[in-house]
């Protein structure tokens, strides 16, 4: 299958000043020479513990931060040359914390509406206010939210509903690729399943591709056919999820799989 996103030799180092007056800097290799690709219509899993650099990769792809070295290609075009609008048209992100990812002072209609307007501007469509409202309602219905919440504010919703709003905002751009950075790890278990199923439905309906970042190996294995294991800024293992789970090659991956709590009664 065709590559949608291709990452080549990506490097991102952070420098920390050690003391107040010292000139020695500590280098943190957050992302150290990483290459991988996401195919069209696949969910690629990315696992690793906190501080392994997985969120840095997400931020590099959407250009919230810039790499020191390496290139990212989207459909063979270099992302570095994209305008902010062109990038957002193609790649969107779902965030971890549904409480921090929605502006508390803006209504749901504004949050999603402004994205719809940016999309219309890019595609050159001219939409009336009513048409934008209709579009917002359509998107809300797609993610399983009631359509009469346009003038409500984020604090009126529960964590799961907020995460749906976050997903609606990402979908409003009709992107090709969605980066999901731990989208369910701050939700309750019964809500997690709702969101996971929603993501799977959306993937089929819109033929989306996902980079699914998580620390929960079980979840990644359930969702994705292919996965990457990251450790200290490097990809230590890459392959089919099923295979990695059954027969991990790398020492760290082995340790990771060993330490997943298992329900022994179900084995």
């Amino acid at each position, binding site marked *: 299958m065709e590559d949608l996103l291709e990452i080549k030799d990506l490097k991102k180092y952070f420098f920390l000043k050690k003391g107040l007056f010292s000139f020695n800097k500590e280098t943190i290799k957050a992302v150290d020479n990483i290459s991988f690709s996401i195919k069209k219509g696949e969910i690629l899993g990315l696992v690793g513990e906190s501080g392994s650099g997985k969120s840095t990769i997400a931020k590099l792809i959407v250009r919230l931060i810039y790499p020191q070295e390496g290139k990212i290609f989207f459909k063979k075009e270099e992302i570095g040359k994209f305008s902010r609008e062109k990038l957002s048209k193609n790649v969107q992100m779902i965030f971890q914390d549904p409480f921090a990812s929605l502006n508390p002072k803006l209504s749901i209609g504004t949050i999603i509406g402004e994205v719809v307007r940016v999309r219309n501007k890019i595609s050159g469509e001219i939409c009336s206010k009513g048409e934008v409202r209709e579009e917002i309602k359509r998107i809300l219905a797609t993610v399983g939210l009631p359509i009469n919440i346009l003038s409500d504010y984020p604090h009126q919703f529960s964590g799961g*509903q907020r995460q749906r709003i976050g997903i609606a905002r990402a979908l409003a751009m009709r992107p090709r690729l969605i980066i999901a950075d731990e989208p369910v790890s701050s939700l309750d278990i019964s809500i997690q399943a709702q969101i996971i199923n929603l993501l799977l439905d959306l993937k089929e309906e819109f033929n989306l591709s996902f980079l699914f970042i998580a620390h929960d190996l079980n979840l990644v294995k359930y969702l994705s056919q292919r996965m990457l294991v990251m450790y200290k800024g490097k990809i230590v293992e890459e392959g089919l999820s099923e295979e990695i789970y059954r027969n991990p090659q790398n020492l760290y991956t082995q340790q990771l799989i060993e330490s997943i709590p*298992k329900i022994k009664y179900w084995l």
Partner: protein
Amino acid sequence: MADILEIKHLFVEYYKRKKVVSALRDVCLNLKQQEILGVVGESGCGKSTLALSILKLILPTEGKITKGEIIFKGYELWEEDYLGDKNIISMGDDSLRKIRGGEIGMIFQDPFTSFNPVFTIGEQIYESLVLHRVGKDLNTYSAIHKEAINSLKRVMIASPQQVMNSYPHQLSGGMLQRAMIAMAISCRPKVLIADEPTTALDVTLQKEILDLLKKLQQELSMSLILITHNLAIVAEICTRIVVIYAGEIIEEAGSEEIFCRPRHPYTIRLLGSLPYLKPEGKRLVVIPGTIPDLIDLPVGCKFYPRCDEASDTCLQKINMKEVNKGHFVRCCRVKEEIDGLY
């Protein structure tokens, strides 16, 4: 084994902008000596409130225990002629101080905020040792120091002296959580309450901390209450499990019984929503809707609005029913067969 802690008909309320939040209702629970009891529930179900109530740590400005008893039977078991108050809820401040940390220890979710940043780990461990053990069995400085070192060694810290001299920010999350466990066990509590002890940690550390807790529980013959939202963690080490939903215990049974023969519709679906051992392409079981508002609870069964087997009988008051030996369920339809969902 005999019971060490018994909770009888506990009701807890919080007050939020003049509204009553009913956090726990009619909670009855007993903790046996040397058992590991898992308390499972989603956020806001009242599991942390339960932990705080046991030590009477609910702030009077925020809420209170309105009814019920929490009987600590530890004294009776060790001193037969003990005549003092056994009900933690009616205890005075002096007796409470002995219970808190001394008889019942507690470990919190976030090790970074649970230590005071301006004192070394050693100083903080000394403090609790001085409070609970000086005058009993430790009377010299060197004895206290030795005990602190011993506690740190027990939690598998390789260089205890170095950790003693460190400030909290100098240690990693895993190390700090170990130090907190060391502090909790240094006073030899008979009951240890662990509130989400591994949630803030990485998967690889989670396993280590769980194994450590289990090892300590056996070595020191403590009873352990493990409070968590993570079913897999509970399955790993607990012998008995209590499931809480919207402030009520809805199912209570042995660990294997819960995982293999769950009876309450909520438990059944909760287990079905875990992404374990799922054949490819099959969707997870979903519980529709969200947790009910604790200010405005549904009548009768609290799970009724989200349950697809619900009928009119669910609207009455529902009591716990024993469906198997030691397996209690709060569901009026439990006699009818409702399995095969996962």
